[in-house]
């Protein structure tokens, strides 16, 4: 049975990675999950310099999911290269580094610093709804997305995944823009912007007012968008949004995702990633599928 997939020449032992920001750099979950079992670890967004992130309350629960407004707190690329990459290199897994920034120059700066690092792919987060400057602005305008993708592709030594925002009218247009600018792959969906109000205290629950929604509640939207992108462009897709079991992951794969990422589910079940991997294999056995690549985009 083959569960390995390939994106832009990089081979992953299985199609399961972690959703950026929900798994740190793997360290915290390494006591529950053998990181070498994962197709890849996708790390928390990293910027050129350390970022403070937003004030708390940063996370809250909603029906069937959660909102977060972390605001991309991170130690900056230098600490990351010194500490997190060497840690991850100890495992037999691929490394996808999620990159954030406030300006095109910042993104490019991080990508340059990563160009000499032993990481396998870059995922460019142009879709974080929780920071004021940059981020989502690039992900909600096809022109801006095309431009930043081009600039990044100029300096990137590793294949580039553009991570799309679901907070758009036509996700397929964004996929087309990313592809036109030379993106090697796209990943989606980032969180959907949401809000929760505390009716007793008559105020927003999150200090940032709005937060990004994730978890099972957003899955139908994510599957739909993966499908729309798969129909629109012929570049590999990493699908995510509410995946908490193998059945969820397979939905994304059938809709057109080459890989899938497990996000908020790690919080409700630290073993979620491995259970998804095992479950995919069981499904393939049950369905007599010998190569996972047969399933990718099989529903049209």
């Amino acid at each position, binding site marked *: 049975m083959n569960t390995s997939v390939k994106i832009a020449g990089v081979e992953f032992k299985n199609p399961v990675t972690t959703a950026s920001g929900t798994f740190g750099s793997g360290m915290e979950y390494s006591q529950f999950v053998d990181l070498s079992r994962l197709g890849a670890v996708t790390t928390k967004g990293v910027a050129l310099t350390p970022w403070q992130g937003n004030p708390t309350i940063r996370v809250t*629960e909603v029906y069937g999911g959660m909102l977060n407004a972390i605001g991309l707190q991170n130690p900056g690329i230098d600490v990351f290269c010194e500490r997190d990459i060497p840690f991850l290199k100890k495992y037999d897994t691929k490394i996808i580094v999620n990159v954030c920034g406030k300006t095109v120059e910042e993104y490019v700066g991080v990508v340059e610093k990563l160009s000499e690092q032993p990481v396998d792919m870059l995922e460019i987060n142009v879709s974080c709804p929780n920071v004021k400057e940059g981020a989502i602005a690039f992900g909600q305008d096809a022109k801006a997305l095309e431009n930043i993708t081009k600039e990044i592709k100029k300096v990137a030594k590793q294949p580039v995944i553009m991570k799309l925002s679901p907070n758009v009218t036509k996700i397929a247009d964004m996929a087309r823009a990313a592809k036109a600018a030379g993106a090697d792959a796209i990943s989606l969906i980032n969180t959907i912007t949401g809000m929760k109000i505390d009716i007793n205290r008559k105020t927003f629950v999150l200090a940032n007012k709005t937060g990004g929604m994730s978890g099972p509640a957003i899955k139908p939207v994510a599957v739909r968008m993966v499908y729309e992108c798969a129909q629109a462009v012929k570049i590999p897709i990493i699908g995510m949004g509410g995946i908490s079991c193998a059945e969820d992951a397979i939905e994304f794969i059938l809709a057109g995702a080459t890989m899938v990422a497990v996000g908020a589910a790690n919080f409700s079940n630290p073993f979620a990633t491995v259970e998804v991997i095992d479950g995919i294999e069981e499904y393939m056995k049950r369905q007599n599928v010998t190569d996972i690549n047969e399933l990718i985009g099989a529903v049209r």
Partner: protein
Amino acid sequence: MQICEEAKLIETNKLSDGIFEMYIKTRVASLAKPGQFVMVYPKDSATLLPRPISICEVSDGELRLVYRVQGKGTKEFSLYKEGEMVKILGPLGNGFPVEEGKGKRSILIGGGIGVPPILELAKALKGEDVTILAGYRNSDMFLDEDFKKQAPLEVATEDGSVGVKGNVMDVIREKNLKCDVIFACGPMPMLRAIKKYAEENGVTAYISLEERMACGVGACLGCVCKTTHKDSHSHVNNARVCTEGPVFEASEVEI
């Protein structure tokens, strides 16, 4: 080491109005220290985040958790029956620095639903020069009998029905309590008052903070608090309550 497992609920009781306890048999017990906490995962599938609950007492491979019914998750917990399996993750966080209480005069302060973790700490400091100070709303107290077995107990109640009328700081003032070190858990205003008191009186205070959490293990960066020093994760003076905390030296944190 941390463990995530389905653990068996051995016993459950209502302690006072809205306050419940559960005893659970779990491998976490043998690892737990005072001031650490566990995550308890609700079963209802619309309720996805685990709930942080302090370790109140450890004994015989069992954890005792004492909690207030607050919202959906704790409501669900309060309906559990003996024999039920409960998913937990722990022990989490750093816990109280017990050694800092050795050979010194300590006051252990618990306020409201911050009272439970004080019990295991009092047990760890048994025999030392310890006063326990617990603040309740009214005479509907909980854990007070347990405390008395460990050390002298002073009580504050908001309505004055038991002990000193007012809050825990009023007790310290009225009874003129003296100490070298304070260990505390409770609502933010209480912790702020303790931080101030500690600064003004040259006392070291260890306070246990609360923050909204998603992962509990340091991965999501949801639960930070402002610190005066660089935090170990992001180096931006934002320590993770679940990992670098929940207990901080009061002078280290901006609250």
